[in-house]
């Protein structure tokens, strides 16, 4: 068994098809007639251009995958004298075979780009590799036309490649391949994100893969654990196959009804929203039929670049998300920088207790210039969709009032400049510090909504650092103190007529879902891919049973008992 990092979308099971990549066996040979070799290359070059143009035309009709940009870039590479002329020069001057020249030049350029200190440019080296591999395929007269075997699922292959390349992934169609396994690469790479967008189970970074697998081997890839089994024993085969079947049955059921609202058997509606980190992910949220964006983390703008994003750049990002979601609400959280999320453009002194230090709203209020820029950008985006603003890490009423005062200033400055924004933009706060839970009755009068950030609420309630492995067992959402706080916030929210959402990891925990329904949580926000499952979960709930469950687990004294009670409830639902 080998292992790597999976993209958490099911299982890839099938016969392996090993794709020759840049490491195919190419011998350097001296050719007698370089002109003939040049003619071969030119023919392959023209054929490659036609292939890429065809892919581009196909992608123009398809949206959301950035395929257009990729193939436009490929065409540009093909037009680049630094690439094509270098190959032709090598063939004619060194009198070598075209294959050798293509790989030499391609690899040299790919290597050069991969050494540049920029993640985006590093990824372009994969594009060059893909392009020269296509050239090599045309030289071989062996253009990979994968005959899709749509009707026969058992005939689908697991593609085994050295490196996952964006343009390679983009030409695959969901349903035509069983899975993708790559020896190299990172799960956050563009190619891996594309695989996720296409819903293809993929595992990357599998050491020793290319040596261990040959075409025809049976591969079972578990994208949740990242495990890749090659010709495993029968017991393992049965185990993984069963897990895959269960997953697919459930997924099909969830997917089939993803567009429907999440309403309990007794008619209570829970809004299921998505958490996103970039505007592009709004497309995923839309496809999953999320009913809004419950949390748009604005940090990516600050963490990606060495310089701080200006108002215009932020505005464009927020507007893109707002426009993609149309009338559905997009809650933009102001920057949650500091602690475990440093921003390269905003160096901060090291702190002994970063989670208790200068971060999030505390930093925003100290750096009013940055805060003002961000609020203006969010307000401007509010003219293009249904935008709400949320402040993170509020611990005192002063902070909330100060933040709201800056917001009013931002509104006034925009109004003075006659720039459009939504004057009635909703303002909410994260409830993630026990102090605000305790005072949630008072806070409820001053905001339009609450959003419980369980990740931080757990760590602050239980005084357990969430990234310290040594105290990991202490960190649990099932602690009765955590559950009681969630119930209190929801209750105080309702008394003042405002909604309470949950946007932490716990929001997507199927065990906790009936509890959340039972205490009257109005909204749950989670990773886009989990939205359909949560919606289905809500539909299975009965209000009275959930209320009873919530009451009873809050009377329990340990997290273990709580988890047992929640599991027992889940089992009882399955039986009935």
């Amino acid at each position, binding site marked *: 068994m080998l292992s790597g990092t999976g993209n958490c979308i099911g299982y890839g099971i099938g016969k392996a098809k090993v794709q020759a990549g840049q490491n195919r066996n190419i011998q350097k040979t001296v050719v007698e007639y370089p002109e003939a070799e040049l003619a071969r290359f030119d023919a392959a070059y023209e054929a490659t251009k036609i292939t890429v143009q065809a892919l581009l035309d196909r992608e123009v009709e398809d949206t959301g995958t950035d395929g257009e940009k990729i193939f436009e870039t490929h065409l540009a590479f093909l037009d680049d004298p630094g*690439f094509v002329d270098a190959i032709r020069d090598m063939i004619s001057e060194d009198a070598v075979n075209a294959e050798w020249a293509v790989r030499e030049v391609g690899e040299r350029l790919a290597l050069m780009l991969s050494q540049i200190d920029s993640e985006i440019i590093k990824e372009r080296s994969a594009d060059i590799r893909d392009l020269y591999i296509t050239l090599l395929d045309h030289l071989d007269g062996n253009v990979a036309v994968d005959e899709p075997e749509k009707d026969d699922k058992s005939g689908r292959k697991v593609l085994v490649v050295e490196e996952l390349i964006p343009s390679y992934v983009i030409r695959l169609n969901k349903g035509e391949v069983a899975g993708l396994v790559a020896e190299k690469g990172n799960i956050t790479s563009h190619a891996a994100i594309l695989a996720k967008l296409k819903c293809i189970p993929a595992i990357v970074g599998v050491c020793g893969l290319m040596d261990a697998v040959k075409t025809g081997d049976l591969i079972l890839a578990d994208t949740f654990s990242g495990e890749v089994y090659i010709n495993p024993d029968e017991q393992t085969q049965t185990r993984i196959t069963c897990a895959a079947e269960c997953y697919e049955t459930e997924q099909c059921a969830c997917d089939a009804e993803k567009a429907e609202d999440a309403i309990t058997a007794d008619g209570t509606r829970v809004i299921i929203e998505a958490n996103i980190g970039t505007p592009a992910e709004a497309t995923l949220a839309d496809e999953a039929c999320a009913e809004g964006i419950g949390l748009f983390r604005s940090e990516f703008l600050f963490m990606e670049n060495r310089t701080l994003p200006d108002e215009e750049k932020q505005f464009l990002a927020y507007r893109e998300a707002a426009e993609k979601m149309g009338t559905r609400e997009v809650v933009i959280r102001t920057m949650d920088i500091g602690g475990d999320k440093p921003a390269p453009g905003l160096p901060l002194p090291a702190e002994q207790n970063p989670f208790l230090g200068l971060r999030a709203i505390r930093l925003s209020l100290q750096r009013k210039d940055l805060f003002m820029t961000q609020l203006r950008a969010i307000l401007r985006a509010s003219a293009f969709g249904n935008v709400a603003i949320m402040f993170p890490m509020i611990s005192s009423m002063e902070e909330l009032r100060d933040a709201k005062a800056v917001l009013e200033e931002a509104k006034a400055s925009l109004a003075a400049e006659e720039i459009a924004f939504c004057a009635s933009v909703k303002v909410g706060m994260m409830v993630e510090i026990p102090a605000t839970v305790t005072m949630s009755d008072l806070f409820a009068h001053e905001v339009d909504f609450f959003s419980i950030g369980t990740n931080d609420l757990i760590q602050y309630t239980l005084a357990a650092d969430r990234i310290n492995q040594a105290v990991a067992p202490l960190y649990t959402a099932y602690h009765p103190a955590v559950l009681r706080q969630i119930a209190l916030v929801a209750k105080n929210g309702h008394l003042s007529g405002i909604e309470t959402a949950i946007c932490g990891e716990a929001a997507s925990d199927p065990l906790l879902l009936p509890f959340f329904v039972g205490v009257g949580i109005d909204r749950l926000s989670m990773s886009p891919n989990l939205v359909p499952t949560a919606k289905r979960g809500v539909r299975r709930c009965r209000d009275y049973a959930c209320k009873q469950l919530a009451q009873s687990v809050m009377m329990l004294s340990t997290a273990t008992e709580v988890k047992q009670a929640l599991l027992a409830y889940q089992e009882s639902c399955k039986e009935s």
Partner: protein
Amino acid sequence: MQNNTVVVKCKCGLHARPAASVMKTAKTFQSKIRIEKDGKSGNAKSIIDILSVNVNCMDQVEVSCDGADEAEAMQAICAILESEID
């Protein structure tokens, strides 16, 4: 020869698509066109050269054009660098 300093406004810097359009435009001129940043310089008629200069959004770059149509070339290239395409 003409020289000009501009601040790049392309949203993601000169990566992929903007680099491709710089190359496409540069190729329509006879002049030699180069883009330079931090002592690293590249031929604007080669996307690989442009990428290797590693230009990010808000970076300041030096553009030089040399040839019969240098004035027009300068204008066209700067227009792309200063536009907010992504």
